[in-house]
């Protein structure tokens, strides 16, 4: 960085140069100076010819001192050296130049763009979406019409007007796929795009063009400005570098900036949002989903389980894959609670050859050919028992309805004459695959047995031994082509949100005789910037010409 402050290029400190000289010097400066500059500019920030239009507008609308010849020169220079812009006022240009940036945008009606990029409209859209989502969590989703007839009856409307008619007409029973909600999202996406094209990109185009200001008045007009009576612009440059600024120095003028990425990041945030929306649309239109409960030891074909969700859902080769459940088992804590579910799966191709084998568990799904298999549920399939050392018999377990989400399964083993009208028998209940509670013919508690314990239980003369508990695994299958796009959007959103935290600060300074006029501005966090600048300017050393020494000027704000 220090090479920038090439001593040979610096103007003598106490020589006051006439204004016209500055104008000329920008074109007659030696090539060595320009090469230093081009080294300093990082490639993403280098100007391309895209902004031709914009530059023209800037000139014609603002610069009364410039003629057409100057403009063409500047544009040629812009790729290698700094363009000269005396008056830089971003806000004014933005609205004018927005349409000319992209040809595609030009074809769209300008009026629609202007309306869409309106901040108030965007804020309104966000509020509406937030409100709709909140309503979606209040009204139960996906119930039958009868449910809503009962919950929001016509004779006693909620809040005096809200009845089931509202719910069903507006599609509030399936809020997140209702036309209102999706329409608002589309509108928001349109606003995002319009705002990015008409407001954000022009701001960046102006902001990234680093430039010198040659008139003291223009510097004094900045948000922050100050005058240092006896100072050198070089010393200021060194201090700014120390504070993390990129500093450019040419003759008596100085330009410094930092946090330029903070200008780009909001565009990135918007693009990332659009990417996530696009991915979400693809997910909704092009995915397959399905769930299946398979007892241990049985097979299923993925294509039979998966059902399409939209018109873009196209089955793939992997849909012919047959899945064999080798084993389903659970891990338990010492307290008896389930700690994890595992399913050992084998994938077989059409020829019956095993192509993949994996033990999946919650949080660890299997992925094959675009299909993902999740462990989501379980069930008790059958109980294998020996009755009086005969068997083994498989008793089918039935799920019993209970309040709460704990599962309970039960089965019944008839004892005695099975042809009599009122059969009596032994009931067996289980909460998990670990322990079976056995009740006798009168319904009294008889005992608890574990599968594989080889410990028989004797009930009314019948000896029963529980050999095995066979579970079934609840699998959820899906294909989702939108996931890579959504993930890319997630990554971009995280990154750009973090980068948005940076503030873009710009500082200009001009040596005017012995005094240095400093001006600066920032896009957000103005107060911190003012504080930083004041501290920085306090450190600028005073040039001592004679024995006469004055206190360094403190900032006047």
């Amino acid at each position: 960085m220090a090479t920038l402050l090439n001593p040979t290029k610096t103007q003598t400190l106490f020589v006051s140069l006439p204004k016209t000289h500055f104008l000329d010097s920008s074109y007659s400066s030696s090539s060595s100076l320009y090469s230093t500059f081009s080294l300093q500019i990082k490639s993403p920030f280098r100007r391309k010819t895209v902004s031709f239009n914009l530059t023209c507008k800037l000139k014609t609308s603002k610069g009364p001192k410039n003629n057409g010849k100057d403009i063409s020169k500047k544009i040629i220079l812009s790729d290698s050296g700094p363009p000269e812009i005396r008056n830089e006022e971003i806000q004014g240009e933005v609205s004018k130049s927005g349409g000319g940036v992209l040809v595609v945008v030009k074809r769209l009606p300008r009026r629609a763009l202007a309306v869409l990029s309106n901040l108030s409209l965007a804020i309104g859209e966000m509020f509406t979406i937030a409100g709709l989502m909140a309503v979606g969590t209040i009204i139960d989703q996906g119930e039958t019409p009868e449910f809503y007839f009962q919950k929001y009856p016509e004779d006693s409307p909620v809040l005096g007007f809200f009845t089931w008619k509202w719910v069903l007409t507006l599609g509030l029973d399936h809020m997140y796929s209702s036309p209102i909600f999706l329409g608002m999202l589309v509108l928001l996406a349109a606003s995002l795009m319009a705002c990015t094209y008409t407001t954000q990109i022009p701001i960046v185009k102006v902001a990234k063009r680093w430039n010198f200001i040659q008139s003291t008045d223009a510097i004094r007009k900045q948000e922050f400005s100050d005058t240092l009576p006896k100072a050198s612009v070089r010393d200021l440059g060194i201090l700014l570098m120390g504070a993390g600024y990129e500093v450019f120095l040419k003759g008596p003028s100085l330009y410094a900036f930092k946090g330029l990425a903070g200008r780009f990041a909001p565009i990135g945030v918007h693009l990332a949002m659009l990417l996530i929306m696009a991915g979400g649309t693809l997910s909704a239109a092009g995915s397959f989903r399905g769930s299946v409960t398979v007892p241990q030891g049985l097979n299923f074909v993925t294509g039979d389980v998966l059902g399409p969700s939209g018109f873009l859902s196209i089955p793939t080769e992997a849909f012919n894959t047959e899945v064999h459940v080798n084993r389903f088992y659970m891990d338990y804590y010492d307290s008896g609670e389930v700690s994890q579910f595992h399913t050992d799966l084998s994938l077989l191709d059409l020829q019956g050859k095993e192509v993949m084998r994996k033990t999946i568990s919650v949080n660890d799904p299997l992925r094959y050919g675009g299909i993902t298999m999740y462990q989501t549920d379980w069930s008790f399939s059958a109980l294998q028992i020996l009755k009086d050392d005969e068997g083994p018999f498989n008793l089918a377990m039935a799920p019993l309805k209970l309040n709460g989400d704990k599962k309970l399964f039960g089965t019944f083993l008839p004892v005695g004459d099975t042809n009599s009208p009122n059969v009596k028998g032994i009931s067996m209940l289980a909460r998990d695959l670990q322990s079976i509670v056995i009740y006798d013919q009168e319904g009294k508690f008889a005992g608890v047995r574990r599968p594989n314990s080889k410990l028989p239980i004797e009930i009314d003369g019948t000896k029963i031994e529980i050999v095995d508990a066979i579970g079934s695994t609840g699998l959820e299958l899906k294909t989702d082509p939108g996931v890579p796009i959504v993930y890319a959007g997630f990554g971009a959103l995280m990154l750009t949100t973090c980068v948005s935290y940076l503030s873009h600060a710009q500082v200009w300074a001009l040596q005017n005789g012995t005094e240095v006029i400093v001006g600066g501005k920032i896009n957000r966090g103005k107060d911190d910037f003012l504080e930083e600048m004041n501290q920085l300017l306090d450190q600028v050393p005073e040039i001592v010409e004679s024995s006469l020494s004055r206190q360094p000027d403190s900032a006047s704000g």
Partner: protein
Amino acid sequence: MIFSTLEHILTHISFSVVSVVITIHFLTLLANEVVGLYDSSEKGTIATFVCITGLLITRWIYSGHFPLSDLYESLIFLSWSFSVIHMASSFKKHKNDLSAITAPSAIFTQGFATSGLLTKMHQSATLVPALQSRWLMMHVSMMVLGYAALLCGSLLSVALLVITFRKVIKIFGKKTNLLNESFSCDKIQYMNESSNVFLKTYSLSSHDYYRHQLTQQLDRWSYWIIRLGFIFLTIGILSGAVWANESWGSYWSWDPKETWAFITWTIFAIYLHTRTNKNFEGVNSAIVASTGFLIIWICYFGVNLLGIGLHSYGSFTLTSN
């Protein structure tokens, strides 16, 4: 056993230290600024931070998993986040207004977490299968940090609104506590304390001038902290979505908690957008941020209270008896 005793001790120490800190804050408010007292309140906050950190680590060791699996633990983590924000902001600037928000917030969450309301949940439970993931630490800690920062920011905005409101209805005099009943004590305390600071700093008789300065300060601090919280919230929601794609089968399933987190995100996105426009700055953006305060509480607490949806790990019932 030794762990639960240690945990008990740490809980009580941190709670009492925060109480002392708040008392000191009130003392400085009554007897103007006493430097020694201010220092001790700073030390007290650091002590609280150490205690809560110790508490979390103890819990981590004896339960064997990251201590963020239920509401009690997340509340403790929330008050820890408040103390972190407090310390971070005091690094940024020695004496600041944020401490008046963070310290009472910490005591409230700490007090609520340790109160009888949630005694049932104090026992650390085993981790259900769905929570056994390395994403737990990332997702939940980011969410809670985000909530903490956004709560601070929106409280500052509420304070700003209160001051502006007072200006509008022309209630002057800083000891006129007409509004005491309608606003919680931390805000009032905050206002009074800040008034003291500004009276001393600028020693200006003009009410309007210091009020203007104060609202500017509030605005600036709330903007700073909300921007920070927004980053945490974004990372938290997105990591949650990635986790959901690993465990529930979809990155977004419109679960109530998810939806409310997204609503919170939207509201603060609106806040950040209002800040880009000069017309909306100040009162308008403060109104948005204050709405955000309500929404965070619905998201963090209201959804748990109902115990609906897939995020039912943190649910509880108020009738614990």
